[in-house]
């Protein structure tokens, strides 16, 4: 399945400034996405997942967002150092993104066919008619009659719009697909359809995928590896099997605890107590300690590194410190 590293993010730090407040959205995130692999970024709303995806694509709104540090490599090139012109050749071509809300992701003023053709014409040497034909084929590919390309977004339902967005993202056969909660805004019945179609197309084309979600069900279905994000940091990362079977971080445990498990007899769901810390004033020490049932004095002060508990399984928790295994 997995090949060589396609995208590697190293120590990414992103801040938002609003007035005098500085919001620490992403605080030193590193991960690798390998060819043909799907990595799930899991976490609550506001954990910084979307910011990471937008940083990779270089479309963070600046201001207020600012990349303060780190590197993002693709094909051995640091993409943060690329010029706008070089970056534009990457966007939509090598890396494409699917946005959360299909209702607002399409421009209401243009027919959908033109919106798909736009991305083709930007990256391929192709005639107008050729691009139009290709956009029809793409629509057919996602299960929409090609002639509906002449219709405007308001004439489509939410699920159909998301299919259009997916067709648009896949138009130039990108190596990497950033999917930002692609099914969250859809009806539950449509979610499965869309997800299944995405997986089919991904497998057909061998596209790597960064799947951003807060839904562990989707992770179980779609992902090979998982990175759990909390307050702008990766708190646990590993293969899907590792994360599901050997859950190591209390936050990940909490995420599972707040899911109903049909295999064991659970009387009551265990939600994680408390709220995500305000990202403009993060707690010292382990950022999860105010909500952690195992927190000790040390957790409140020490900066916690990622510990490798097993090859490829990283955990940011003092309880997993190999020097003081308890």
């Amino acid at each position, binding site marked *: 399945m997995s090949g060589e590293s396609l995208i590697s993010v190293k120590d990414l730090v992103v801040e938002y400034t609003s007035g005098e407040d500085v919001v620490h959205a992403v605080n030193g995130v590193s991960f690798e996405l390998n060819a043909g692999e799907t990595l799930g970024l899991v976490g609550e709303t506001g954990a910084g997942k979307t910011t990471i995806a937008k940083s990779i*694509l270089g479309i963070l709104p600046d201001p207020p967002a600012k990349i303060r540090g780190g590197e993002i490599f693709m094909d051995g090139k640091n993409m943060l150092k690329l010029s706008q012109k070089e970056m*534009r050749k990457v966007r939509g*071509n090598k890396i494409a993104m699917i946005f959360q809300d299909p209702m*607002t*992701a399409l421009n*209401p*003023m243009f027919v959908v066919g033109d919106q798909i053709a736009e*991305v083709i014409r930007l990256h391929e040497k192709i005639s107008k008619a050729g691009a139009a034909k290709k956009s029809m084929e793409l629509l057919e590919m996602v299960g929409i009659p090609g002639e509906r390309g002449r219709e405007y977004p*308001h004439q489509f339902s939410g699920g159909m719009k998301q299919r259009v967005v997916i067709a648009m993202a896949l138009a130039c056969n990108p190596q990497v697909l950033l999917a930002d909660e692609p099914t969250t805004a859809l009806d539950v019945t*449509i979610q499965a359809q869309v997800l299944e179609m995405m997986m089919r197309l991904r497998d057909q084309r061998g596209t790597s995928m960064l799947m951003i979600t807060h839904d562990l069900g989707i992770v179980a279905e779609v992902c090979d590896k998982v990175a759990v994000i909390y307050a702008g940091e990766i708190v646990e990362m590993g293969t899907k099997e590792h994360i599901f079977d050997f859950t190591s971080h209390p936050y990940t445990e909490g995420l599972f605890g707040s899911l109903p498990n049909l295999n064991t007899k659970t009387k009551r769901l265990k939600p994680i107590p408390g709220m995500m810390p305000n990202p403009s004033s993060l707690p010292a020490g382990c950022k999860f300690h105010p909500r952690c049932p195992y927190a000790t004095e040390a957790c409140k002060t020490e900066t916690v590194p990622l510990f490798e508990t097993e090859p490829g399984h990283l955990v940011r928790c003092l309880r997993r410190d190999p020097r003081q295994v308890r």
Partner: protein
Amino acid sequence: MLRYVLKRILMFIPIILGVTIFVFTLLYFTPGDPAQVILGSDATEEELEACREELGLNDSYLERFARYCSDVFLHGNLGESYINGRSISEEVASRMPKTFTVALVSVILAVCIGMPLGIISATNQYTWKDNTAIVLALLGVSMPGFWVGLMLSLVFALKLGLLPPSGWGGIEYLILPCVSIALSGAGSIARQTRSSMLEVIRQDYITTARAKGQTERKVIYVHALRNALIPIVTQVGTMLGIQLSGAIVAESIFSIPGIGTYMVSGIKNRDYPVVQGSVLVVAIIFSIVMLLVDVAYAFVDPRIKAQYAAPKKRTAKEA
């Protein structure tokens, strides 16, 4: 689409009728005796009475209104001036193009200055460019047009002698009056453009366009502007009305022989048919412009077009 246009045209008729009633009534109740105005203060009562009878002033309101409507709409006759007895229709017809030119040119100027200013402001939010643009736009909307006209004519015509201070002729005669009333329009278009661009730039589909690798220029001028245009189009239409009235004042500063000078002289001489006719014609032209704007609106926004298009076959879409 055709249905929409027809519907708008049908709505246009009662409005014109309403405006006619309004203007007629307003001047019907105007104090003062037209006969006195026509004949001067040394006319005898008999002369006055004869004059009133001739003008039909002794008839009832309804009779007079019916006569006025039939004159205006069936014969295109706006009556005669009390002062010199000349046909108002002819006078208006020869003057209207000048007023309309001044108004139209100033709207175009306002758009050409205001929209770029608003776009620069919105795309550089919170920078010095934005702040400068905001202040310029604020100054623009706050300056009374007729005062700007006076000051411009002082500087560019009277002191520097670059442009003619008054009259009507080539393009050089247009510059000062148009600029003087365009500035406030430019200010308000800039403000409208800024706020609607800011609103649109936040939208997801703009991020989508960027994510496709589209150039920033096209993101702004194709994807964002097209959406931001809807409220701006409406405003530009309304502005033509504002500029038509602005032109009335500018004309009196720059002595342009348009509707404005005609109307102002009508006001000064208590020559009410002149005022009546001028107001009516300007209002009708304004209504036609608003009609065109509404139609343009439908062309700009597919969602509005869709509302009036033939009913769709496909009603049940995917769940």
